[in-house]
């Protein structure tokens, strides 16, 4: 296991190198159009590490990305392309807010209860398309894609007709009672206990996937259904387990995001962090341990881009272009399946073995 982790990390480091090159490729022309080109690069690359607050921003942004990335990883590992993570994230946030607004809980049970409800309700958006696939063989990808929007509108309906604070000037829930919010960790940042949950979740997820019998069985079902039925594994059950687990994690992510950062629930569109999770899962090559650095990296990019847009006359859309280019570069097999690259990875594995 350590060998594969080391090789994986090397691959990851090299991935990062490619990314830096891509960033430079997109950013250098932009930088040259600015009075101080080096400031552009400095701000984007080093800016996010400039202050505690900015580093806090990275962790804040990485928290939901880690959780949704983990959720997507588990779902994809079971061989399903269920995109319900986005819907689960939204529903999870909504349900946690609803718990906070509607239930008269106080004290230390309040937050866990809201997160639990968020996870349970949120998981629906993954479970429904998953179930329709397992039970009827209907495409989980398309079903989840459209049902995400159906869940969104159902959620907005609920927000408008049940949770809405009529005194607020926008469509928002009532204020979430203080007992339900997550504790802040670091003065001057919004870093909350959710980040710890996210780290722990990724590590537990990795241990489950690689270190337990049911994790192994899920990987088998996901990578070779024929082999799974040869072994007599309960494929449907395992598939559903993964959808439920992924959905619970994604729902929990939404709950944590809302309770950690917001004082009211106000999403009237899909927040997009589920899509981020899918990107993270792919960058991490569907490995829960690598989800952590992948999410941190995307968050770092986001913060760097925000700093550019805020401090210089660089349009914020540049970040969208940079992220798209990075996604392509990182997944370009031409780079990562290149013989020279493969040889390097093999050498590392070989040295480990030799030692």
């Amino acid at each position, binding site marked *: *296991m350590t*060998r*594969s982790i080391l090789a994986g990390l090397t691959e990851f480091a090299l991935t990062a190198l490619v990314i830096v090159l891509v960033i430079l490729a997109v950013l250098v022309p932009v930088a040259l159009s600015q009075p101080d080109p080096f400031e552009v690069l400095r701000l984007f690359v080093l800016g996010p590490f400039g202050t505690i607050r900015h580093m806090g921003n990275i962790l804040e942004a990485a928290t939901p990305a880690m959780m949704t990335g983990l959720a997507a990883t588990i779902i994809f590992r079971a061989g399903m392309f269920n995109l319900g993570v986005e819907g689960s994230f939204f529903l999870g946030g909504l349900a946690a807010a609803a718990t906070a607004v509607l239930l008269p809980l106080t004290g230390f049970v309040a937050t866990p209860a809201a997160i639990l409800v968020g996870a349970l309700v949120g998981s629906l958006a993954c479970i429904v398309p998953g179930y329709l696939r397992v039970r009827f063989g209907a495409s989980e990808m398309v079903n989840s894609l459209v049902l995400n929007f159906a869940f969104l509108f159902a959620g907005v309906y609920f927000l408008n007709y049940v949770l809405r604070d009529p005194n607020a000037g926008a469509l928002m829930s009532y204020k979430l009672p203080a007992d339900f919010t997550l504790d802040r960790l670091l003065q001057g940042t919004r870093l909350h206990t959710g980040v710890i949950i996210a780290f722990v979740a990724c590590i537990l997820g990795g241990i489950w996937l690689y*270190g*337990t*019998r*049911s994790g*192994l*069985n899920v*990987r*088998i079902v996901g*990578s*070779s259904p*024929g*082999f799974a*039925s*040869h*072994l*007599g*594994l*309960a494929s449907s059950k395992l598939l559903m387990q993964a959808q439920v687990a992924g959905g619970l994690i994604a729902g929990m992510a939404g709950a944590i995001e809302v309770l950690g950062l917001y004082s009211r629930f106000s999403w009237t569109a899909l927040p997009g962090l589920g899509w981020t999770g899918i990107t993270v899962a792919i960058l991490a090559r569907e490995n829960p341990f690598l989800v952590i650095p992948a999410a941190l990296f995307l968050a770092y990019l986001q913060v760097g881009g925000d700093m550019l847009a805020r401090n210089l006359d660089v349009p914020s859309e540049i970040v969208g272009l940079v992220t798209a280019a990075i996604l392509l570069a990182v997944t370009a097999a031409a780079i990562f399946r290149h*013989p020279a690259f*493969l*040889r390097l990875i093999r050498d590392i*594995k070989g040295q480990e*073995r030799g030692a």
Partner: protein
Amino acid sequence: MAEGPIVSFRQVGKTYPNGTVALTDASFDIRRGSIHAICGENGAGKSTLMKILFGLESPSAGQVFIDGAAADTATPDFAGKHGIGMVHQHFSLVPILTVTENIILGHEPRSSIFIDRTKARRQVVELSERFDLAVDPDARTDTLSVAAQQKVEILKALSRDTRLLILDEPTAVLSPPEIEELFNRLRDLRAAGMTILFISHKLHEVRALAETVTVLRAGKVVGTTPLAEVDDAEITRMVMGRDVDVPRRQRQTTSAPVVLELAKVSTRSHDPADRIEDISLSIRADEIVGIAGVDGSGQRGLVSVLSGLMHPASGSIRLSGADMSRAAAPAWRKAGLAYLPADRYAQGGTASLSLADNAIAGTDGDKALQWGPFLRRGAIRQRVQQMIADYAVRAGGTGERLDSLSGGNAQKLIAARELAGSPKLLIADQPTRGVDVAAAALLHGRIDQAARNGAAVLLITADLDELLRLADRVLVLFNGRIVADLANHAGLTPAALGPYMLGLEKAS
């Protein structure tokens, strides 16, 4: 120009991008109008050489001369230009297309912007009549039997003014009568002036068909000789670089208890491969029962009811006395079934997971490997390393992906997993297909060993040598029924089985 060899390889070398050296310095000639066989162990470089000749791969060194002229290799129109057709080792028909569409694919007859479908169909009918290979031009390819698909492959290879036909292990999936028919067709083609390159692992086939043989070993040409000038032992030595001692099963009549018993078992299915009718058979401990039959005669149905993937429509199945008629797959495994499936990657293992994961798959609840829900990594590594050593699997380490192994080594690992413990019933479905001689010998030994340890063994194989070497009793399946139940005595030959397999005779 019509003189001299049709093809000459000169110092051809091939190193794949991943560093695998598949060929070095290969030089030999192919005589015009001959049937030329190429032999060699798995991975010797046979397919690679043929792909170079067909223009699918470019050589990293050396040159290929066609009609005495150096040829540009690996251009898209290479094969068409030189009149070369190839039947690939792994089928290359598009399953959702019709026979006609498959045959014309890549060189469609046109009228304006459309495919001229009448002309295309006529071409196929003509082709099939000319070469005496009967196919239904309008059938969807994936509805055809393997042998029929093979015919389509050959027609496709012949469809473009072909004068050199390459057949890469064409017999691996065929039954003996089908092989005999194929050989007759190939002889006809040679008579019509075609040059044929024929790859096979089976010596008697090579002998029956070819005039000349080239032996490759580890990417090098060991030699090219007329077959008349060498005997089998000599060729074996050339192929293996050593003599192979084939283990033979000591047949013994035994009064061990009956382990598996099927009484009048039938399934209902539209697919003949899944349909069996009125099958009754019993297998004792330490008995190997071999199933012969043309591919698609019900073997798949038989295996499915015996592994819980399908339930019989009628009849009863007992394993050690317990009724298993409605048992699902997990129950079969729990009751002691071990199963070596024919489709190694789709069913026997999972390509993208590690050797260790593959080796311990399905051992749920094994206390030695598991602590509660957690896997014991150390114990697993030890266990898997032991398996690798016991079965002589050539592998880098337990963390390698299964698909980094060669086919034969993957099969050995899968066998190691299935035969661990002491199974009560072993189903071995084409256990050595595509596996080299040494590995096959090892696997035969392990199957024999499993029987001696008390397993009832059901062996399904297209390789009649293997069947006769291992089986105590041979059942012949035809159209889902058992048409012969023969004790495997010394006089039983493949030729004797042929009539049953073709459904010409019935015995019981």
